[in-house]
């Protein structure tokens, strides 16, 4: 089989995933797009492993590892999205804008201010009070 087929398919899948990551608003859809990208990589790994006839099967082993890591990622990712949704009432990626600099100190989106909700980070309570 021509190597270009899986390789090009992987490239196209990867770029579709890339588009999804950049364009989707819902965080869960973004996670789906990430899965697409990971699968594109997996496809590449498997194809090259088969092509190279690697004695160690490094490509396939790595694919398995990637799948495992992807499973872990999706679990953690979904947990984070749930947490964000619980605190913010929304899981829209482009509304989580606490990283932006606000010279006037006003909230970008009407009080339901975004925050990057890494779990170790305390919530800025004063903002909520000010908004209330």
């Amino acid at each position, binding site marked *: 089989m021509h190597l270009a087929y899986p390789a090009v398919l992987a490239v196209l899948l990867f770029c579709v995933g*890339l588009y999804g*990551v*950049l*364009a989707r608003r819902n965080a869960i859809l973004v996670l789906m797009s990430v899965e697409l990208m990971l699968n594109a990589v997996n496809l590449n790994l498997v194809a090259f492993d088969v092509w190279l006839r690697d004695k160690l099967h490094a490509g396939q082993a790595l694919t398995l590892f990637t799948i495992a890591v992807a499973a872990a990622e999706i679990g953690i990712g979904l947990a984070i999205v749930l947490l964000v949704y619980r605190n913010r009432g929304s899981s829209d*990626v*482009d509304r*989580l*804008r*606490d*990283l*932006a*600099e606000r*010279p006037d100190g006003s909230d*970008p989106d009407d009080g339901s201010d*975004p925050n990057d909700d890494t779990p170790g980070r305390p919530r800025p309570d004063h903002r909520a009070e000010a908004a209330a």
Partner: protein
Amino acid sequence: MTTTTTAVLVPLLPFLGALAGLLLGRRAPGFVRPLAILPTVAAAALAVVVAVSQGGGAGAGKAPVDAATRLTPTGSVPIDLALHIDGFAALVAVLVAVVACCVQLYSTGYLRDDPRYPSYAALVSLFTAAMLLVVYSGDLMVLLVGWEIMGICSYFLVGHYWETEAARSASLKAFLVTKLGDVPFLFGIFALAADAGTFRITGILKTVAVGGLDHPTLIALLLLAGVAGKSAQFPLHTWLPDAMAGPTPVSALIHAATMVAAGVYFVARLLPVFAASATAMVVLAVMAAVTMVGSGLAALAQDDIKRVLAYSTVGQLGYMTGALAVGDRGAAVFHLLSHGAFKALLFLAAGVVIHAAGTNSLAAMSRMRGLARRIPDAYWTMTVALLALAAIPPFAGFFSKEAVLGAAEHAATGHPTASGTLAAVPAAAGWTVLLAGLLTALLTAGYAARLWLLAFHGKGPEPAPDHGKQPLVMNTVLWVLFVPTLALGLATPVLPDWFDGRSLTPTLTTSVLGTGVALVGALVTYGAWRHTTALAARVPLGAVAVDPDAAPADSEERAIATHAAAYGDNAGAPDPADPGRLLLGPLHRPAAVGFHLDAVYTALFVRPVRAAARLVRFLDREVVDTYVNGAGTASRWLGAAVRRAQTGNVQTYLGALLAGSFVLAVAVVLVATGTGA
């Protein structure tokens, strides 16, 4: 104690007194008066000792005292801490110290309730010390130190009543105008030292004697600028009348002994330098003539009693510079001495008059009955001092002024002078000084008579306010100064021993002319006064705003502060009963304001400086600040532009990151494959 040690102590004692007064003034008020008076009195006594031991000076063949210690090696022209005491220095020092004593004593009465008396007394001591340093110094740089200390002291003392606007501006004006002269003066000293190779006066005089100066005219004119500033000669005299805003004792000190005398004394010391340039002598003569006549006219129009005296000082200083212009420093210093005595007396008496009348306005005094009876001491001493000022024989002023006129006549008619050393005086200078001197004698007698008539012979419905008896110490000082005023003429035959040896005896021609002219002036003024005095009763004028029980300094301060408010002007008063108005006619208004010289200065200097300041401000605000603000605004805009990129949207960041990495990857691939070219 050698003469040198004694001489060193003379300026040092008041200086230490001033230091101690400044340090202890606040903590130990009881020591202030002793600290002010005792060092000055001791300095006066030592100055007398120095003068006596130095007695006879050059005339009697005794060499001047010269002592020096190298102060600092400068690499080129060394600076020495040098003394040079000849007859001039010894006698002027006596005058300075005695007048300073009188002023200090008088001040204890005059400023007895003043809260700033400690600093005032210390500054007067410092002023005295600086003048004594100038007098005794044998090195021009050291002399300059004293010269500048006097400048700053005059600034502080003239501004003693700094609560009043007039005093503040007057002190600033005195400082700035004298500094205007001091800058060329400094250059002149440097040029002189560069030519002579030394700052020592003896060395300079030696160089001049062998004709070693390369630029005598330039040096003399530069030095003249400083002298004109300090000695209040035209055109830098304008600070002196305004300096009347200071306390009366300070005026006496400045006018009689210290500040204004310094310029004349300096020229007398370095007269050979000036005499080396005929141009400088003519300039000096013209300056003296303009000063004399102009100040005489202005004095006739002044309403403030102290301003009349101030203009008379300017005129008498004109006599002294006139004498120097005709090459007779003996006459100049003689007039300096006698003028110092009677002008100190005049000012101190004027202080008493102002206190008694509660006003400094002659127009107001001329409407008071019996002011002379309230203050008989001041009345009599002032009468004699005015006679001396008008050069009526046999008082001191007559002899000294006739010495000046005689010297001018010698120069004008080309008589061989007695010593014959200064034969290079142009005849034009002699004639200028002689004619201006005679005219000024007329004017002097006129304003002296006007002052006397208006102040002491007022006719009005109101009697002079009763302020009680004047402080004893003030009257005592008046009588102390009365002695030299009356009798300094007796010293005429002796003085040449201290000076160059030239005779100071009045000649017949000038004596008759001068006295006659003075009598004419006095009589004409009397006639005019008889004519106008009837008006005084009809036109009520002059408000006395001073509390009768106020201390002398307080009443003077109040009088100065209210003069402009009451009469619309610091100098003149719209008084139709003024004989000066009748005598001067259309000249009265310009004379009252000093011939608009201040306006000329305003147009020449103040406005250009203000315009330049406005220009600088404009350049700073509009041009320089534009760049600064532009830099700030540009970075702010740039920051705002960059900030817009920070949207907080992770997807935007990621997109930009991927786009950038894509571009980089493409570039790398193109370079790697070699097709990018």
